């Protein structure tokens, strides 16, 4: 059965298209794109999405699916459901599971789980070092053959600079980017939140911004030295944004991502000891948040990535110092990103940061809405308000500071390879004609 998506505002960052248009989908491909009303009706299911926006499916570079090992927090299937409810058609699983994904078999396992869930495309990273211990390189070749799209020790930094050097060298043989959780673990010490006036008032040990800056600088210099492909994950400080910007200007092969929480919140959100705000890197100061947004605007930061990190009450319903880092983010990313547009960022730029940007970081084919492109699409109502709560949440976990707070911009439907994998509220969102 072919599908026609009618009367949506089609936003395609690759071509710059921004107009009311109809799409014809045949199988897993877009067959035709025509201005609204210009498409000849044929034997197809017609979906009228008047009022909604249609973009390429969103890509999340940075997701913790917790499988294998911590399925009480999330698994590949539940994470995929949350992703499609957030408009994502591709997500990239981090390897800091239990056991760590540091071999081809485990990469294959996660990818298989994703296929079995049958919702979005589940891509997988392999670890940089065996067991993420910064001691021995993981088998990049074996993991690449199993389908890994990048290597990273995310969740913890590569503490040993020699290990990072080798990873940046060896990864070039397999054309894998090295995703770096850039943090000097000794400088962050037992820190629980950003070091500043709020940590002083709350009596919480601080993680200084310089703990990130030092590591970003190190990794950039190593990338420059080795010629490797470096991607800085969850940039959170003004200084780190500057370091990436300068490195790009010098021609270093570096890319970067920022999370919705780092461009939406500051350390003031921690007041009251809300463990849902405990993340690594921590929520920073207003000037850092502004610098991250500037970096997203001027191309220094290539992608928005959620760092979706589910935790249960066991990890979060504890004193702040004892709580684990991380918040879920798959379903809140789009409304928070749209806030950037509401604050003045060009709309196609915002969409690019969640589609073409992350694709470029990983070297995936460019998502686009054009004839012959893969039919991975997100359809959303930009003005619809909703909240993340027990009814709307698809993750197994609830650790979000945005829980129960009004969000503007709601996904109406998500299409992966021409198939509708998510539709809002399970109500029919369109009329069906033949």
């Amino acid at each position: 059965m072919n599908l026609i998506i009618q009367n949506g505002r089609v936003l395609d960052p690759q071509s710059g298209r921004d107009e009311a248009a109809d799409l014809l989908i045949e199988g897993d491909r877009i067959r035709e794109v025509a201005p609204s009303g210009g498409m000849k009706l044929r034997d197809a299911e017609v979906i009228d999405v008047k009022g909604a926006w249609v973009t390429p499916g969103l890509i999340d570079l940075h997701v913790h699916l917790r499988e294998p090992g911590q399925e009480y927090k999330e698994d590949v299937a539940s994470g995929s459901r949350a992703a499609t409810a957030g408009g994502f058609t591709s997500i990239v699983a981090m390897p800091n599971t239990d056991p760590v994904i540091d071999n081809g078999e485990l990469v294959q396992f996660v990818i298989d789980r994703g296929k079995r869930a049958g919702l979005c495309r589940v891509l997988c990273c392999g670890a940089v070092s065996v067991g993420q211990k910064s001691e021995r390189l993981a088998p990049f070749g074996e993991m690449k053959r199993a389908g890994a799209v990048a290597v990273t020790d995310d969740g913890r930094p590569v503490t040993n600079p020699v290990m990072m050097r080798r990873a940046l060298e060896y990864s070039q043989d397999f054309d894998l980017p090295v995703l770096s959780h850039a943090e000097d673990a000794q400088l962050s010490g037992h820190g629980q939140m950003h070091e500043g006036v709020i940590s002083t008032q709350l009596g919480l040990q601080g993680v200084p911004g310089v703990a990130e800056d030092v590591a970003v600088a190190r990794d950039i210099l190593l990338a420059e030295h080795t010629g490797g492909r470096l991607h800085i994950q969850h940039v959170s400080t003004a200084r780190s944004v500057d370091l990436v910007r300068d490195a790009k200007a010098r021609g270093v092969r570096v890319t970067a991502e920022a999370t919705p929480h780092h461009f939406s919140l500051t350390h003031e959100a921690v007041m009251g000891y809300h463990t849902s705000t405990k993340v690594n890197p921590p929520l920073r100061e207003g000037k850092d948040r502004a610098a991250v947004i500037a970096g997203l605007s001027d191309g220094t930061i290539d992608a928005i990535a959620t760092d979706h990190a589910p935790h249960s009450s066991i990890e979060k319903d504890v004193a702040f110092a004892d709580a684990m880092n991380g918040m879920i983010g798959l379903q809140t990313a789009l409304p928070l990103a749209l806030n950037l547009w509401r604050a003045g960022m060009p709309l196609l730029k915002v969409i690019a940061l969640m589609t073409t940007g992350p694709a470029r970081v990983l070297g995936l084919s460019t998502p686009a809405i054009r004839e012959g492109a893969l039919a991975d699409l997100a359809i959303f109502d930009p003005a619809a308000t909703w909240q993340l709560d027990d009814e709307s949440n698809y993750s197994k976990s609830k650790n979000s500071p945005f829980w129960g707070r009004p969000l503007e911009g709601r996904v109406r439907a998500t299409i992966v390879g021409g198939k509708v994998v998510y539709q809002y509220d399970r109500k029919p969102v369109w009329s069906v004609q033949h």
Partner: protein
Amino acid sequence: MIGGQHLLGMQQLDSEQINAILSTAQGFLQVSRRTIKKVPSLRGRTIITLFYEASTRTRMSFELAGKRLSADTVNISASGSSVSKGESLHDTVMTLNAMQPDAVIVRHPASGAAAFIANRIDARVLNAGDGQHEHPSQALLDMLTIRQRFGKLEGLKVAIVGDIAHSRVARSNLIGLAKMGAQVRVAAPKTLLPRGLVEAYQCTICPNVEAALEGADVVMALRLQRERMEGAFLPNLREYAIEYGISTAMLDRCNPDGILMHPGPVNRGVELSPEVVDGPRSVILDQVENGVAVRMALLYLILGGEPA
């Protein structure tokens, strides 16, 4: 009024409330000096002290305060309870809650733990020190001691000297003294000065201890925890004593009526030289006595009223 409220920190109190608590505490001093050191105000109430950190004086001070108000007090310490069997804080709190206490007095190494408990329990929670956050009863007893000497707090020059970064006593005093109009200055090794201190509190940072003591009405020395030697904050105790310790000669820089305070227990010969601990300016034992009175006042004011 603070009746029926939790006491989590000085942050929540205004100057009027602080004054009223201090005045009430002044009235309670008399009870502890009688032969029969007990009044019936909280007869039949149950007070639990829940201490996750070793503390003799604060726990005992609260326990005596409760007993002298005729409440029944039960002490739970981290060792020898289910706490040491790995029970989560949440589960411990729910278990205590089922026993229907009227007040729980909490000491915990995690900042924010008192608020965590207060959010989950029906009893009133009094923070007896949560991590490096707050220790409000200590600040109140310090302020009572100062007020007894000077008749006021407003306009007094108060020097806080020592490990500000890790001190909940310093934080509660910085908040409370600023609210009462005192002028607070601090002196500490740079490694033990937290970032954003001046922004967070109305205080000035002095370049050295001597400058902080110059003309001070009150000198508050902080206890130096031995574990600060480990995190490379300081080279050794001897150097700390020489460079940052307070001696008789240094105290001569104070106002002639200036007093010396310390929350205890004192590391003699480290933050204070032995002779100043017992010297004429020392009001350290007044602080201890005032501690019981302040805690009686807090328990009485929080639990003693009719339900709202």
